[in-house]
């Protein structure tokens, strides 16, 4: 049932009991059934016994439906949100040589909800936080400033 055609990017949010090996259960499910993970973030939900995962994946409608159902089938999974109206954000950290045009970089960061967060003798580190697509844009725009290292957080999302 690997249907490559009509593969769509999807964000799936999963609420799980925060217990040992729960993350492996999720990732094993994806690898075992041949589903993609583009990004995955996980953190405990404050003041509860649950954690929330945000998984960015892709697949045909049928594959996404199976992913949702198979996730539900795992015993420690409380809820799966898929195909919801979501607010989605991602963070990226980028390191530039200080010899680049720092004021231009700072201005760009500003346009993407970001700023310079660290300055050392030879490097600056910037952060931006925006929708994943906008983060893509930012990263392609700053290529000309010779970024030395890029870290993306993966998307987090919350249904409206």
């Amino acid at each position, binding site marked *: 049932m690997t249907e490559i055609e009509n593969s769509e990017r999807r964000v799936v949010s999963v609420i799980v009991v925060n217990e040992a090996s729960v993350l492996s259960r999720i990732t094993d499910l994806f690898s*075992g059934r041949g589903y993609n993970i583009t990004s995955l973030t996980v953190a405990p939900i404050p003041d509860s016994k649950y954690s929330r995962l945000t998984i960015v994946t892709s697949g045909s409608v049928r594959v996404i439906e199976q992913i949702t159902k198979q996730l539900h089938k795992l015993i420690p999974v409380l809820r799966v949100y898929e195909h919801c109206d979501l607010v989605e954000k991602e963070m990226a950290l980028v390191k530039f040589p200080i010899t680049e045009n720092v004021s231009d970089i700072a201005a760009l960061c500003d346009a993407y909800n970001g700023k310079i967060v660290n300055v050392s003798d030879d490097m600056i580190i910037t952060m931006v936080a925006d929708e994943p697509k906008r983060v893509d844009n930012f990263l392609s725009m700053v290529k000309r400033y010779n970024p030395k290292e890029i870290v993306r957080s993966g998307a987090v999302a919350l249904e409206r």
Partner: protein
Amino acid sequence: MQISGAQMVIEALIAEGVDTVFGYPGGAIMNVYDEIYKQTDFHHILTRHEQAAVHAAEGYAKASGKVGVAMITSGPGFTNAVTGLADAYMDSIPLVVISGQVPMSLIGTDAFQEIDAVGISRSCTKHNYLVTDASDLARVLKEAFYIAASGRPGPVHVDIPKDVTAQIATFDYSKPVELETYKPHTKGNPRQVKKAMEAIAKAKRPLFYLGGGIINSNASYEVRELVAKTQIPAVETFMARGVLSYDDPHLISMLGMHGSYAANMAMSETDLVIALGARFDDRVTGKLSEFAKNAGVIHVDIDPASISKLVNADFPIVGDVRSVVKDMLAHVGNINPSRYETWRETIANFDELHPLTFHEDTDRIKPQWVVKRVGELLGDDANITTDVGQHQMWAAQFYPFTRPRQWTSSGGLGTMGFGFPAAMGVKSATPDKISINFTGDGSILMNCQELMTAVEKKLPVINIILNNNYLGMVRQWQTLFYDKRHSETDLSVQPDFVKLAEAFGGIGYRVTTKEEFDAALKDAVEKNIVAFIDVVVERLENVMPMVPSGGSLFNMMLLEKKEKK
């Protein structure tokens, strides 16, 4: 009460009403075995291999409808058991498998007989646990039994480090299971059920597609009633043999790769598939795009993930088959059985054109004849298990099944070596029935060490070896699809199966004629000890009909017609 982790395991098994545990001791599980030694509430059956312990527990669970229990040690004990876990997972068999683990202080140090057991079992169990504190044991074991048996059943693995079985803690088994995240849905949506029944009433050529889920949910007698009242023809999957009796006038036969011509044609021609506890496995559907192409689909299953996984369901109904079929029976008055008269005739014509049969031979024994003959001689008195291969398909095709839980075979995983230990489990669950294991000369050698268990524990399984000196099913594919290059499937070099059985204290027969077979079977039943009946059968017999892998159901290779003499 304050007791050790090992004692907790015993107390939990007793509280769950377990009467038989299959297992094999070893270092990390010794504390528990010490407690087994001290108790008298349940039997422990020592198999001679951990894989066999799990298969025996599967057989026990299939025949009894209860949760099967197996116990093994860490490391190789556990890895040997993995095939059994995977087999139970594929066939939705409720098991609790308890393994020992190295002490907590040694986990992660590559200790002697250490392996990441829960890491390995995660993908082949319904759920698993590593117990890190004895105070969790009562809750974990109670959840394990609950999860194994509820919803879509399956194996649950509980891994317990040695120091946890030694630890003293409070044990209270009376607390009910509280799993906020696991609540199987058993009642079908009444509106969906009503709509489905309306669709059936409107259909011209509806077809019941009966699956193994019916047996798991103990719904066979409700399904028999539904079929009788609607008079709609029915096909069974391999796993569903025995849901309807073989002589039910509405049962066509098994469908799928080795299904009957009429069953596969009915599925290809139907305008409404009524799937009950079946999962549209590739061995059933053949080429998906051609499967029941013009039909609507009603799909009743307790596992939402099975619905619309492979074939889109027009009427999805999530629920326990038994509960849903009962609800369907309430609407049965709106269905006029005479409406499907022409459809029944069409199917009867299919069956007349290419009946499920084989060519008898006067000189040599045909393997199908053996299955048929056992059916004639033992019929309802026998419970049937099989190994995997040609003999398995012949058993499914030709045995006259009369009741659910009469049939136990490794369907999903197709595990050679399953049959004999499973038959021991079946026998221990249903001692009043004769336990027959149809096997092949390939399969029986995977787990023939269980002769020792069967002799010791007086489990008189009759193993009927359909001996063609080949790995027959692979040989059949090689003959048909690999230009007769019989690569590594010739099993001409064989043990003396009679002596092999006798060496363990069982009884053996080698049979080359039909008369000898009848005499051997009669003798084995009378002697009531574990037996091998080595039946020399036609070497190059193929299982027919056959839908080649990936082909359409209606494109079957058929039994060649013989000229009438």
